[in-house]
């Protein structure tokens, strides 16, 4: 069970037009663990994350080579249904993006488009998702209120609940705490650590302390190249790459 590979990234190259954004990246993301993708701004970490649920497909000038295997299957190979892939790989964005609907309908959104369950089943799964996102107790009496009435931290946990309601295997988090205050950040980090029991989690962060707190494995990205990857405790205590060491000791970043 431990260190079983869930996602294998294999010689991945990505261009936006003439811009070579990701260069020959290969590393493995283990199952039921938190993997952090770190690096300075503009190094391509969000782009790398978005290759895993093929959100970069929305940008027309994207060219990709190499493979990403999820459970052994190349998600850029022929016969892959992107809709099905995105159901299996959930995502939470950098800025909380609740839909302009009620709290309940936000979480039910994915269930409705995938027609998962009848009215009763939807209610049950919405409650379960909200409980898992540690939000149920705060919103159970106001499920019909607008999602915009929630605080930033609550909105981000709502987005997490919305993502896990459709029962994905993998959850991608794109700097989920960057718009949150310290208290909300702490709550979200605790939640992430809790959730790795059920999901494989990949989190992008430019905050090294956060990566150290929540992740089991980490990958360090510099200018589109993978400088180093491995167990978080090893990368943080004995970095093998000079660039990682400079970043960790605060020489730049």
């Amino acid at each position: 069970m431990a260190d079983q590979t869930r996602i294998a990234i294999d010689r991945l190259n990505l261009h936006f037009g003439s811009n070579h954004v990701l260069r020959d990246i290969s590393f493995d993301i283990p199952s039921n663990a938190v993997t952090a993708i770190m690096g300075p701004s503009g190094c391509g970490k969000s782009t790398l994350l978005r290759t895993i649920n093929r959100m970069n497909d929305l940008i027309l000038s994207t060219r990709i080579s190499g493979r990403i295997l999820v459970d052994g299957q190349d998600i850029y190979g022929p016969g892959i249904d992107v809709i099905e892939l995105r159901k299996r790989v959930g995502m939470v964005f950098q800025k909380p993006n609740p839909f302009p609907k009620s709290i309940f309908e936000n979480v039910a959104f994915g269930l409705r488009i995938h027609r998962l369950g009848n009215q009763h089943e939807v209610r049950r799964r919405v409650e379960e998702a909200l409980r898992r996102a540690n939000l149920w107790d705060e919103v159970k009496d106001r499920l019909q209120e607008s999602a915009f009435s929630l605080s930033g931290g609550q909105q981000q946990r709502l987005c997490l609940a919305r993502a896990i309601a459709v029962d994905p295997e993998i959850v991608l988090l794109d700097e989920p705490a960057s718009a949150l205050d310290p208290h909300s950040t702490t709550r979200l980090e605790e939640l992430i650590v809790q959730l790795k029991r059920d999901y494989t989690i990949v989190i992008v962060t430019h905050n090294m302390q956060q990566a150290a707190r929540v992740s089991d494995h980490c990958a360090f990205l510099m200018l589109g190249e993978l400088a180093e990857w491995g167990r978080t405790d090893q990368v943080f205590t004995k970095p093998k790459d000079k660039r990682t060491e400079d970043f960790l000791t605060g020489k730049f970043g």
Partner: protein
Amino acid sequence: MSRSDATAGEGRIRRARFGSNVGFVFLAIPLALFVGFILLMFGWLLQNGGGVLSWEFLTSPPLKGMTEGGIWPCIVGTLLVTFVSLVFSVPVGICSGIYLSEYAPDNIVTRLIRSSVRSLAGIPSIVYGLFGVALFVNAFRFGMSVLASGMTLGLMNLPWIIATCEEAVSAIPSSFREGALALGSTKWEAIRRNVLPHAFPGILTGVLLALARTMGETAPILFTGVTYYTRQLPTSLLHKFMALPYHLFTLATQHDQVAKVRPIAFGTALVLLALVLAFDAIAFAIRLRITRTNTWQV
């Protein structure tokens, strides 16, 4: 900071405050003039045409060579031809607007189409009128009719509806689309569930404004279907019809007793203006409501 600096600072603030007041006055005066002018026009219309307004005037046909009676056939004709124009332009316009905003790739062709739409919206309506004669009256053999006029007006409407619809759809934050796509929705599901419901008030406003504009147009219907006088209300789309703006034109310039029918002309103008304003007011009310309820637009 020395004392001279402080006085210099005070002087600067005083000058800036004076400049700001001057700016305010210069911006407020034209607005006041404009509003005053509109009120003046209204008052003038009311004074000259208010006298003929009655239930009778609204619901009876012109009588005795248009020197008596009302404008009922013109109201019916205007509403009918406007409705026909919308039947053609609204579905096509909304679909085109959504396509341009959501599906069209950003390349030279779509950029050309987009700027063509904008330019078409600025073409004088008489040009649409002539085009309508060539295409609908002659080539399609609709003759001078409600259908030919309606389609000509629809053609004129179309660029407006496309442009406002595209703007309403583009104004919806991309995070609503991305969020839905990331949950595994198809592109159409994301648009239908997360974009269109929120763009709807904006689209409706655009349609209502186009409608208000259409009702007042004279040139496009002039050669394509409107008539000076007809005894009957149009019962077929291939009949000719009477319309408010053309009736006004007739009474004001073509009638042999222009002075005698002047009050009726003013009354016609008032009714036309009231109809146009009513639809504008509905559009305004909807816009007001969205800006109040669009909580995502912070």
